[in-house]
């Protein structure tokens, strides 16, 4: 399943979607960036509540399919502009991490 298909089926919001066709292969949940860096896998939907600029570097390093920011955490325009430049998909949902992961699990 691609990121754009996930958005459509799960009802997540696309905050910025420079790479809509990226393939999703799994999910990783975590907020401690150093931990995510070493453990998220390529192709994961990374669910987090962190919203600072550093999440983009972590997503690049881990080559995740997208960042899914849970609980409707507000994102800055700076972050979204940079995400677009760096080709990183950022999605938003009002769901908590657990509910979002369960939803994705039923779809992939």
């Amino acid at each position, binding site marked *: 399943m691609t990121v754009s298909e996930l958005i459509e089926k799960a009802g997540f919001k696309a905050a910025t979607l420079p790479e809509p066709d990226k393939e999703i292969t799994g999910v990783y949940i975590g907020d*401690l*960036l*150093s*931990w995510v*860096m*070493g453990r998220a896998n390529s192709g994961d939907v990374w669910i987090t509540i962190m919203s*600072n*600029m*550093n999440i983009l*570097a972590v997503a*690049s*390093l881990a080559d995740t399919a997208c960042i899914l920011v849970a609980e409707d955490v507000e994102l800055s325009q700076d972050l979204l502009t940079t995400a677009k430049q760096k080709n990183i998909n950022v999605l938003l949902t009002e769901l908590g991490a657990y509910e979002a992961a369960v939803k994705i699990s039923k779809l992939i």
Partner: protein
Amino acid sequence: MNRYYYDLHIHSCLSPCGDDESTPDSIAGMGELNGLDVMALTDHNTTKNCPAFFAAAKRHNIIPVAGMELTTAEEIHIVCLFPTLDSALSFDSFVDSRRIKIQNRTDIFGNQYIMDENDKIIGTDDNLLSNATTISLDEVPDAVKNHGGICYPAHVDREANGIISVLGFFPKTPVFPTIEVHDENKREDLALLCKKDIKKVVTSSDAHYLWDINEKTQFFDLDCKKEDVARCLIEYLGGVSG
């Protein structure tokens, strides 16, 4: 009493986010131009550019302090300062054994150059330096003290990696006698927020570029001679004197 103008939080080209132009010699040179007396080099989780910085500082008439900005397991940044170069280097070995090794991607995070006193690159650190170590916040003060140093939370007024933003409050323990506040105008508010145990508030630059380094604005009045300043400063910030 003698007045010493300082900047105690400076990154060199060894920190991934530090500018490649921030070489040990250029940092000391910039401090001299700005009229500083005391400067601490505090790269992320390493002191390996401190030997070069000490040699450069001597040429530029700067009193050097060997330091490190440690990232705790919780991703809180702590400034650690040591009375001698040797004590800092021995703390460096301890931290090395507690780092989480993730290969650095220079295209994402930047270069990590180790330099000699003439700004010649003599090595690189191939693992990312800025990420969390396995050293917890509670462990830090004793670990630093075991190596003769002192430590305090960095930029407590900042969102990224500040102790208050990470934990949501200023913890009762471990006890820190000093805090670093980035924005000078917030010093009084934050000293109150961080409770009565705080005795000193430091404002350093956290410079990642040469032009970030403090101007001649922040100072300590210390009753000691120039050759003893590093030791006196560490006692002062550690809550022993003053």
